[in-house]
């Protein structure tokens, strides 16, 4: 009965939708940065007690002049071992290692779902599987390469082979982690872990107000792993760089080694701490200026700029800039920080309890939670995370953060939307609330024919002109709306940016050809080898121009394959892959959200339009979607006659019914046939009746 009453109520409500649609969109809430009469209050005082900076032996590091050990220093009050092991930012896949060929990505050479073990198509590098040759990245190489994006701990501290500290293999065994690559010569070398030390989890990077991340990266790149934590303090004046490491400024520390937490700037992780690794574009002040690149990879790959700054007041050359009176991200504008969504799961302020367990299904709220002291002793650093195509590491935590509807009462503000609940069930909120992204994003990385400077051929989306040229116009782009199977099994439409990569692999099972060997195959001292140049030089000017730097034909690819064969690679071939990046930031003001039904419901809708994935397809190799992204391509990926690559969506993908964008089903053809048959029958029957009636009339009714 209640269902019937509810249905009746729904009919009434849907009827009222037309009236609501005529109303102007609601004004956004008044509490915004621009409307605040006074500047935000000063930061809360540092509550952290003063600390003693200890070294790995538990001695006072500044006095001993030894490297700082945060495991020891922070470990005096916090369970640093727990924090390091419950921390996918530290583990980056170390705790999810698999044998090659068993990784969820489907790549035969991946050994894990995270940075540690997963091929990086942006860099063209992969951690070499255990015991295999040739070496591309050994553990020490990996640590140095990923220094800008890894906070230490995990694989920078413990061996993937034996689980012990790096450089400390079981007695009587060789150290498998000693294999490393001399980047200058490309020759294997032995890594001296005793000399370098390891990179412990760097608490300061996230909990210091002004960590010196650049100095930390420099220390790691130099191989001074043990000094990485110390280097993070370089910008604070507590230490200064020195030719053999770092020198403590002992004048600032007392004889007992106690250091003021206030002077250090210890405290909660702030968004600026996250920005060091996730994208410096997301600064908090105008004008926002950024470039696409590795230090802005969140913008480069996912189009995200988590900044409260106004787009119209940014330093970027945006199309229609004057009218873009929106922040880069409305959540940043409303003073949300990264850690308020991506919080520690057992933080009492945010802990929701395990209310999804069947035995507590009678509870709407669980008041039991950790005490502050318990939390501060063992804060779970498997931070709450969303569920995205690219978030493959720690996927068991996917969807642990609050999603839009945990904070927003969408039903209260979507009266204008017919079938609001059906829309909410079928689509991510970002599908409409991120209609356009303005950062130029990487669309293609083609490693099949790198330049002499070891640069791949790159295509970018959303920019007219060279990327990162201040004169290039950032036109923005509408992300593709694609179905994706989430970790909980549901399939919803999500905005995605697709990155396509091509590279060489060889052997069976296949392994990527290391870039240094590809360079040996392609180049001699003068540049591209003569046979390669002869294949690529279309205009016969004796050089390979930037336009010619693509393996357009099988013959050109064959020339490179022959050269790789001469280097000992068996069956070298090009493979292509598509990695989607789910768009989850960049939400604008509500009045900028997509409200036009025709954007999806109709022949010109996002669901029906072909999507260009690449301007050029190397050697006609069609890329395949990686297996662990959850994205279901709604149609075939086809190569056009001009060699561009396009996704051609079929209408109504993967069980979705998008009214107005559906396929003409065989039952439609049958129905149309019945209707046309009826019309033809009626016309024939009526025509005959009319004709005979006229005949009868003309013959006096005798016919």
């Amino acid at each position, binding site marked *: 009965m209640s269902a019937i009453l509810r249905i009746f109520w729904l009919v009434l409500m849907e009827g009222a939708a037309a009236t609501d649609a005529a109303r102007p969109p609601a004004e956004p809430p008044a509490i915004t940065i621009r409307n605040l009469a006074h500047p935000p209050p000063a930061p809360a005082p540092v509550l952290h007690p003063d600390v003693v900076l200890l070294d790995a032996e538990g001695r006072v590091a500044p006095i001993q002049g030894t490297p700082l050990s945060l495991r020891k220093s922070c470990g005096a009050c916090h369970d640093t071992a727990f924090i390091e092991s419950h921390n996918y930012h530290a583990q980056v896949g170390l705790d999810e290692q698999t044998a090659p060929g068993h990784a969820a990505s489907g790549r035969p050479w991946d050994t894990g779902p995270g940075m540690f073990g997963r091929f990086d198509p942006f860099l063209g590098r992969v951690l070499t599987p255990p015991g295999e040759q040739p070496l591309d990245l050994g553990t020490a190489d990996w640590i140095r390469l990923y220094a800008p994006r890894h906070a230490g701990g995990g694989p920078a501290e413990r061996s993937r082979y034996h689980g012990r500290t790096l450089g400390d293999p079981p007695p009587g065994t060789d150290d498998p982690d000693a294999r490393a690559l001399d980047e200058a010569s490309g020759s294997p070398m032995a890594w001296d872990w005793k000399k370098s030390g390891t990179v412990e989890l760097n608490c300061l990077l996230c909990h210091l107000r002004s960590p010196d991340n650049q100095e930390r990266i420099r220390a790691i790149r130099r191989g001074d792993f043990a000094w990485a934590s110390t280097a993070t303090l370089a910008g604070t004046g507590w230490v200064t760089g020195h030719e053999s490491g770092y020198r403590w400024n002992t004048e600032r520390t007392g004889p007992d080694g106690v250091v003021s937490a206030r002077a250090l700037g210890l405290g909660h992780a702030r968004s600026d701490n996250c920005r060091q690794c996730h994208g410096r574009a997301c600064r908090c002040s105008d004008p926002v200026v950024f470039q696409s690149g590795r230090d802005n990879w969140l913008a480069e790959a996912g189009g995200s700029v988590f900044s409260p700054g106004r787009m119209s007041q940014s330093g970027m050359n945006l199309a229609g800039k004057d009218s873009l009176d929106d922040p880069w991200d409305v959540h940043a504008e409303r003073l949300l920080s990264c850690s308020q969504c991506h919080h520690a799961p057992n933080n009492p302020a945010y802990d929701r309890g395990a209310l999804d367990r069947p035995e507590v299904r009678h509870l709407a709220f669980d008041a039991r939670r950790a005490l502050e002291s318990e939390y501060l002793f063992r804060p779970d650093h498997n931070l709450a995370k969303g569920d995205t195509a690219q978030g493959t590491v720690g996927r068991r935590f996917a969807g642990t953060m609050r999603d839009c509807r945990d904070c927003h009462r969408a039903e209260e503000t979507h009266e204008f939307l017919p079938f609001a609940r059906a829309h909410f069930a079928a689509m991510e909120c970002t599908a409409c609330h991120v209609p356009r992204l303005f950062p130029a994003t990487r669309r293609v990385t083609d490693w099949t024919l790198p330049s002499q400077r070891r640069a791949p051929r790159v295509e970018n989306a959303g920019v007219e002109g060279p990327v990162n040229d201040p004169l290039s116009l950032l036109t923005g782009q509408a992300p593709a709306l694609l179905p994706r199977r989430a970790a909980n099994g549901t399939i919803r439409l999500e905005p995605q940016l697709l990155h396509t990569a091509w590279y060489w692999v060889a052997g069976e099972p296949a392994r990527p050809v290391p870039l240094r060997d590809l360079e040996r195959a392609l180049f001699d001292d003068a540049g591209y080898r003569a046979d390669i140049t002869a294949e690529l030089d279309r205009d016969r000017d004796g050089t390979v121009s930037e336009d010619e730097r693509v393996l357009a034909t099988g013959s050109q690819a064959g020339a490179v394959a022959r050269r790789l064969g001469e280097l000992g690679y068996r069956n070298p071939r090009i493979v292509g892959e598509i990695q989607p990046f789910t768009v989850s930031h960049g939400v604008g003001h509500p009045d900028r959200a997509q409200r036009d039904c025709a954007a999806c419901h109709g022949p010109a809708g996002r669901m029906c339009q072909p999507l260009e994935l690449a301007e050029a397809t190397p050697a006609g190799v069609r890329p395949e979607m990686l297996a662990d992204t959850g994205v279901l391509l709604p149609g075939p990926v086809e190569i056009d006659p001009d060699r561009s690559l396009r996704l051609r969506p079929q209408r109504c993908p993967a069980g979705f019914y998008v009214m107005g964008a559906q396929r003409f089903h065989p039952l439609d053809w049958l*129905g149309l046939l019945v209707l046309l048959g009826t019309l033809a029958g009626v016309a024939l029957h009526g025509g005959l009746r009319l004709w005979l009636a006229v005949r009868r009339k003309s013959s006096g009714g005798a016919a």
Partner: protein
Amino acid sequence: MNAPLQRVRFYTLYERLWHWVQAVAVVALAGTGFYLSFPPAEGGEGFRLAVTAHNAFAALLIANAGLALFYNLASGLIRRYVPTASDMFSQGVRHARYYMFGIFRGEPHPFDRTPEKRLLPLQKVTYFAILNFLLPLMVVTGALRFLAGHYPDWSEALGGRPLLATLHRFGAWMFVAFLVLHIYMTTTGRTILANMKAMLTGYGECEEGSQEEKP
């Protein structure tokens, strides 16, 4: 020689009102449904308004059909809509033969419509199919789609929204085909507009004393 004609009341006011409300609702549903299935490329408010109109006319049609069901059940007139075996076979064949041959030869209609027997054999069979199969198909698939956001399990249990939508559209094609046929068949009365007039005014003509079928 034909018997003299008499003017009799075929349809009550309620029956006519019911018919024309259903007619308007069906035409509006077909029109808005076609717009929603094949919208123009340009945007605007048309789609949203069409959704609202479609839902409103569907509610009207269902309410009107429900009231008519109650009326016919309570009055016992529901029997008029139930075809007999002879309606489907002997009389149905005779009826069909008339439309296929007799009507062209100028033969008299094999059945004379009276207020008591105003549904002809093939009409009964057709309406029986419409009211028992096509209309429920449209109502059920439409309602499940309407409620999919609130009760997704219901639509999933019956094949999911894509299947429901496809069946709904197939039913719509059938309904439009029926509409074309229905309108055409109104021209096969005593005169081309006789049946239409009867549904508008309520009155029509039948032969005096003609309460049974013709020999």
